[in-house]
């Protein structure tokens, strides 16, 4: 999508073009509507939401729901707000993203520049692993985490996300390094560089774009994960997605819609910021994730 070359555009009269723009704007509104609903209602009082128009902007802006969502609202037993869970998510995401990206880079390097018999089979197995429905690993994973003493810990979640991210990170780096000139690796070998020197000095400095793509992909997936968080987190290791769901779907008390919306935006904010700042790389990751081989 980086090279616009729309010569296949329909040559049409201005009426058609007005229609096209109208449709496009209609869908812009459609996609933005839920975000608007969340933002505007997170700034309203509960009374205003109950009695009023969900699509209207707030009559008087209040930041109270945000304060509530961040640090005061009751989730589970304690009234801590989403803050501790937000921090849990960060503690979980950073090492998981770093580890899976690093291992993916090493795997891609070996698979393209140091091929040995069986490498393609290993790649095939890793690729297929990208697609398993995770329900299939929930029961044994719960047991293994228990045996390792990692049940209900952030360490356990980091392990889970690292392992199940490996397929995609390896795929990204393998495809990127496949196009990296092998002659450079050979030249470095003749210069006396070792396996790791070639990796650190020659490949990594040229891997900027794919590292960004991979980190964004992993960050988005791990941050947004719910299933593993719901299955394997404990009392003090719950990630934010699970906490948000507990907040919204708890059957007790008054439904504080404004707090729910503020919490939802808090949970979405990190990935949204990444998307807005580096959307190009985000899209590249999505495309690489869809088109294999």
């Amino acid at each position, binding site marked *: 999508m980086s090279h616009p070359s729309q010569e296949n555009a329909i040559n049409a009269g201005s009426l058609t073009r007005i229609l096209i723009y109208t449709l496009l704007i209609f869908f812009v509104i459609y996609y933005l509507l839920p975000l608007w609903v969340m933002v505007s209602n997170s700034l309203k009082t509960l009374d205003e939401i109950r009695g009023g128009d969900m699509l209207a902007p707030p009559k008087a802006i209040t930041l109270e729901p945000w304060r509530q969502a961040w640090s005061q609202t009751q989730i589970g037993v304690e009234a801590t707000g989403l803050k501790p869970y937000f921090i849990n998510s960060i503690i979980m995401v950073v090492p998981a993203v770093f580890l899976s990206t690093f291992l993916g880079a090493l795997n891609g390097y070996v698979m393209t520049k140091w091929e040995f018999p069986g490498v393609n089979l290993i790649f095939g197995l890793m690729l297929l692993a990208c697609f398993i429905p995770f329900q299939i690993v929930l029961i044994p994973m719960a047991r293994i985490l228990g045996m390792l003493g990692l049940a209900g810990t952030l360490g356990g979640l980091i392990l889970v996300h690292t392992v199940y991210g490996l397929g995609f990170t390896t795929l990204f780096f393998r495809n990127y390094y496949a196009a990296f000139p092998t*002659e450079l690796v050979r*030249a470095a070998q003749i*210069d*006396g560089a070792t396996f790791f*020197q070639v990796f650190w000095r020659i490949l990594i400095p040229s891997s900027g774009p794919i590292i960004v793509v991979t980190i964004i992909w992993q960050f988005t997936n791990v941050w947004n994960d719910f299933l593993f968080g719901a299955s394997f987190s404990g009392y003090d290791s719950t990630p934010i997605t699970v906490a948000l769901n507990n907040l919204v779907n708890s059957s007790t008390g008054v439904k504080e819609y404004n707090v729910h919306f503020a919490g939802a935006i808090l949970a979405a904010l990190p990935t949204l910021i990444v998307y807005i700042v580096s959307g190009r790389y985000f899209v590249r990751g999505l495309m690489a994730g869809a088109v294999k081989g």
Partner: protein
Amino acid sequence: MASLTIDKLTKSFGSVEVLKGIDLEIEDGGFLVLVGPSGCGKSTLLNCIAGLEKTTSGEIRIGDRNVEGLHPSKRDIAMVFQSYALYPNMTVRGNISFGMEIRGIDKDEQQKAIDEVADMLQINELLDRKPSQLSGGQRQRVAMGRALVRHPQVFLFDEPLSNLDAKLRVDMRTEIKRLHSRMGTTIVYVTHDQIEALTLATKIAVLQDGYLQQAGSPDEIYNNPVNIFVADFMGSPSMNLIDSTLVERDGQLEIQIAGHGGSSISLPAPDTPDMRAHLNGPVVFGIRPEAMTDPDGADRTSPHIETRDCFIEVSQPAGSDTFALTPLGGKECIARFRADAKIELGAFTPISFNMTKAVFFDPQTTNRIR
């Protein structure tokens, strides 16, 4: 500096054998060119010498040292790659010094070596640029600089000029030749361009399908090819290979060649036991275009010129010469006329054959008949 010896070398990828028992040697200070069509195994052979590919069997010796199993960096070689393989993230200086840095040579010495090489190749003002900021010819120089700075026993070049345009290629060819004569280092050079091979080499090795077809001086390869493949591959335009029949008339051997329409010409053939074995059978008569000329352009030093009338179909002026196409043995043959020679198209014109340059091949085995 050292000689290089290759002994019964084979190399297989899985079940595919790409080098089938290569024996080859180049003396200290020699310039060996490996040449052949793509897929003939020449690059694989070079990679085996470099240690970038493991050999299946056989031996490679640099000097008296068997380099089997040695890491590329310990073979005392340097290599210039087809794509130049400059590290994109490093400056020119970084590219040249990377190997020294890895070997832990101290900074002052590195600097001295870089300056020396930069002077030699006139790339002083490029040292702080990145490869992406260089032109093709400049990259080529830097790649050579990176190799030169190592002062290796043997230089390996893998089609180093194939990415340059025609004019630059000629310049760089001259430069490489000059560097070689100045430094006297042994060089192994891979190319598919036979002009490069002929101009640069002290020894040419022609490969095809993993077999060494012939190894020898450029003169030997050009004038005394051992088989039809070598004869056809080297030289441009390539050697005329004319189907003919060997007969005996009045005790003399001669070949008969079908010409235009129903006409035919005959030319004398050398009387050797090998030739006699093919009497009354087909032989392939090989003669280079420059040994088929207009009578005035014939080589006056040659003791054996035969002139025959041949039918000229097409003429192609090429500046310094004019190529005349004439049908012989059922194929278009190329004769090389002087540029100002008068050529009448669609008529019989005398052509002088320099028979001292004639060679004969067995059409069955494709080998030379001596």
